């Protein structure tokens, strides 16, 4: 008696003390300053626009040895760095600003602004992150990780095939170590580095363009109408909307362009007429291609208002794989008219000559329109490009279209590289869903004393989820992902980015579907790595003799504290609208990063203490974090209000407290009703519901029947013994005669 009271008092004091510690831990986290130097750093607008870029940023940091720098030159722009010795300037290398060259958004939907230094032989010699908006790098993973990641490029040649992941020497692929937990960010960063470096290396002659076999055209002898040319794809359209470049739409496109290659006899003749076509071809050197462009609508010019003689047309270019072809004034010819029947009226026109001998009309190529995108919040302009791919119809090419293998998109590579693990993960999710949907059969096989028919599956789910999903694949879902979606929805939604993290992507599909089918319980109770870890600790505690110290908070207190998690979630959401960095910082209330992504012992002590404290507390109270603090759990609990399929109840549940007493989640109220938002679908109450030695109405009926010598029929769908309906004597007699 005395001992029991002591135990109870102990439980209460651990509960209070540790809960206090959790709160204190949270406060420590919140009061720690944000350690991020370049997170949303304010950059001078001149950095993006001034010809003297290096006056606004320390270019020497990425190009050691250089003491003076040129103005921005080239298209896309870069600067040259020189070393002065004995009054003589020698070229040391090149410095480029990533946003001058590429518009690849990272996880946040915004680009990582990177200053890149490359020596005169095309080797990277310096990389500096000037600005990023990656929430994941804010706290969970130190920004130094990105710096360390970038250092892997130093000394590497720009023409090498560099990819995230394992090196594949047989395919000449150099592998880079990813940042664990920030795969999406580094995949984007790798593209930024390789494309930026490559663009400059090609301009300065370090990278030679790829030579492709030239096209030999077939003259079909036809003259086609505009619509026919468009339908077959030899004339194509590229439309850019104002909103694509950060402007409010006025109903008019930003630019609406049509273009096509004129060398193809049928196309050239249809557009220019026989004479025009022949005149044009007579003026071209072998291997040169003529491209016509007309603007049919739009508020912007494709030639550029600031175009000067001898200058470069900086708004349009042609791209073929990694090679880019730009146009100078000498590459321009007047287009005097479009003769194809049904051609639209236009306000601007040009013929550009693609002079690179390496360009081949036999392969796919892209027409690119370059623009500046205005960032409303900062007023800064970033570079954006819009392209349209074309591939000539096979009937114009001798021998048809050549064999061509399109390189895989980075996200697709990721899926292919990890195909086996992804398949295993999908199998796990499907298996859990199937097992749960067959719960009726399982709970009937189990009883109050032996819950293994259910638990064998659930515990397997936990162990796999902790080991494989949590520690190995690092696919612990997090509230930060929910916040990131909200923001991507506002800024830039790119499927490719979310697809780059296959596990998280698949997990969320599973979560969304199962929340609406059964509620958050299937994810939280069976598959969340942290939730599983914390309940597993509780179960282990029970097995190793700590049961007497384990307990629940009193129901009235629990019923108050359970609201805290909703407050945490809504608070985070609200804060994220004002300041994403602050929200991300506050999201450290989730110990997930510390536990799975970075590791308990790789973080500063407040984080470790907080995560370890929560896990320690889990030994004595079942899932304290899930019940009271988890913002992710809360965000899933809210839609769980409208889950389709709930658990079963009998009318007697209103007065019987047996299930409520056994519910580890304290989700059953005094009237026997289950709060789906709090229920973690452990199925303990469903085992009881079917157990004729535990569920009081069933026990009663079992005893009554046994006493009356009646058979014990199976338990029906409604949770009661299937009633014995006496067959009327007459009917029975009839049955017998007929039988």
């Amino acid at each position, binding site marked *: 008696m005395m001992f029991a009271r002591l135990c109870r008092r102990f439980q209460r004091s651990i509960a209070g003390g540790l809960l206090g510690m959790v709160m204190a831990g949270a406060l420590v986290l919140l009061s720690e300053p944000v350690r991020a130097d370049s997170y949303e750093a304010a950059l001078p607008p001149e950095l993006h626009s001034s010809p003297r870029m290096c006056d606004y940023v320390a270019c020497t940091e990425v190009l050691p040895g250089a003491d003076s720098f040129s103005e921005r030159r080239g298209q896309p722009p870069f600067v040259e760095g020189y070393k002065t010795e004995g009054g003589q300037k020698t070229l040391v290398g090149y410095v480029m600003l990533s946003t001058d060259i590429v518009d690849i958004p990272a996880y946040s939907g915004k680009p990582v602004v990177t200053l890149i230094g490359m020596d005169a032989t095309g080797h990277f010699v310096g990389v500096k992150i000037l600005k990023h908006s990656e929430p994941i790098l804010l706290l969970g993973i130190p920004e130094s990780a990105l710096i360390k990641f970038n250092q892997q490029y130093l000394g590497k040649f720009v023409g090498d095939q560099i990819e995230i992941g394992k090196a594949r020497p047989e395919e000449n692929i150099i592998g880079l170590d990813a940042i664990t937990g920030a795969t999406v960010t580094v995949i984007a960063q790798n593209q930024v580095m390789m494309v930026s470096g490559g663009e400059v290396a090609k301009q300065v002659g370090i990278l030679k363009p790829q030579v492709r076999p030239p096209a030999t055209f077939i003259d079909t002898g036809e003259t086609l109408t505009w619509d026919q040319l468009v339908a077959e794809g030899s004339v194509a359209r590229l439309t850019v909307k104002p*909103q694509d470049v950060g402007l409010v739409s006025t109903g008019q496109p930003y630019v609406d362009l049509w273009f096509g290659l004129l060398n193809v006899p049928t196309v050239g003749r249809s557009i220019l007429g026989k004479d025009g076509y022949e005149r044009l071809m007579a003026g071209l050197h072998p291997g040169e291609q003529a491209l016509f462009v007309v603007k049919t609508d739009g508020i912007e010019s494709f030639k550029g208002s600031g175009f000067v003689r001898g200058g470069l047309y900086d708004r349009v270019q042609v791209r073929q794989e990694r090679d880019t072809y730009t146009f100078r004034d000498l590459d321009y010819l007047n287009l005097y008219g479009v003769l194809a029947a049904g051609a639209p009226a236009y306000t601007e026109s040009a013929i550009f000559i693609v002079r690179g001998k390496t360009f081949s009309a036999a392969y796919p190529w892209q027409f690119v329109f370059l623009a500046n995108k205005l960032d409303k919040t900062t007023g800064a302009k970033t570079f954006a490009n819009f392209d349209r791919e074309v591939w000539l119809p096979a009937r114009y090419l001798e021998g048809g279209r050549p064999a061509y293998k399109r390189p895989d998109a980075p996200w697709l590579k990721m899926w292919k590289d990890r195909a086996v693990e992804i398949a295993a993960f999908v199998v796990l999710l499907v298996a859990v869903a199937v097992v749960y949907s067959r719960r009726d059969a399982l709970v009937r096989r189990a009883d109050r004393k032996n819950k293994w028919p259910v638990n064998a599956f659930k515990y397997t789910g936990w162990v796999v989820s902790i080991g494989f999903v949590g520690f190995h694949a690092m696919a612990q879902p997090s509230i930060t992902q929910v916040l990131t979606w909200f923001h991507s929805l506002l800024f830039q939604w790119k499927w490719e980015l979310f697809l780059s993290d296959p596990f998280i992507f698949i997990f969320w599909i599973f979560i969304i579907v199962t929340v609406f089918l059964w509620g958050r319980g299937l994810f939280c109770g069976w598959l969340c790595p942290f939730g599983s870890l914390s309940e597993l600790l509780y179960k282990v505690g029970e097995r190793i003799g700590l049961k007497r110290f384990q307990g629940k908070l009193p129901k009235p207190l629990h019923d108050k504290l359970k609201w805290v998690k909703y407050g945490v979630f809504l608070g985070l959401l609200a804060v994220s609208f004002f300041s994403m960095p602050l929200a991300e910082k506050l999201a450290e209330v989730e110990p997930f990063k510390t536990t799975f992504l970075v590791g308990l012992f790789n973080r500063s002590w407040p984080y470790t203490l907080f995560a370890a404290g929560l896990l320690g507390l889990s030994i004595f109270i079942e899932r304290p974090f899930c019940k009271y603090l988890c913002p992710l759990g809360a965000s899933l609990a809210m839609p769980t209000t409208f889950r389709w399929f709930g658990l079963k109840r009998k009318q007697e549940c209103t007065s019987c407290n047996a299930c409520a007493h056994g519910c580890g989640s304290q989700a059953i109220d005094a009237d026997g009703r289950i709060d789906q*938002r709090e229920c973690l679908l452990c199925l303990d109450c469903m085992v009881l519901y079917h157990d004729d030695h535990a569920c009081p109405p069933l026990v009663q009926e079992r005893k009554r029947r046994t006493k009356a010598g009646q058979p014990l029929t199976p338990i029906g769908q409604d949770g009661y013994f299937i009633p014995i309906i006496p067959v009327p004597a007459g009917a029975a007699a009839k049955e017998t005669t007929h039988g």
Partner: protein
Amino acid sequence: MVDPAMLTEPVEPAYAAGATTRRLAAEAWDHLWPWSRAGFSRQKLVQAVGLALAVAVTTVWVLAGMGEMGAGALIGWWVGWSACEVLVRLSAKPYVKEGPWWGRRYRAASVMDMLCYVAFKNLLVGALLFLTLKALGRVVV
């Protein structure tokens, strides 16, 4: 009588027993129109303030459609209206659906139920309107 199979007492809106099409139409109307005559007779002030705010928030969407509204202000108004909608509904249509969305079981809404309902519905409605305006180029972020 308490129904242990649902979190709160069962409720039957007038349309619950009607023909399926009539009921679905009435439900759609319920999603879009939070007020009711009963609500007005119960809590005139809340209903009237709600109505006024609804007019304001509609104006905000229209302004946004004309390209006159920033994304931040739009979201702010939408959240504000959602909070008000919770209050209006609690006095005018204080019930939520239980179980499958195509079913005909309803139950009394607690504040939390209503909060979840309005948050979820308005997230969908808001996202739909917002993305439409964004696609049309009327809201730029």
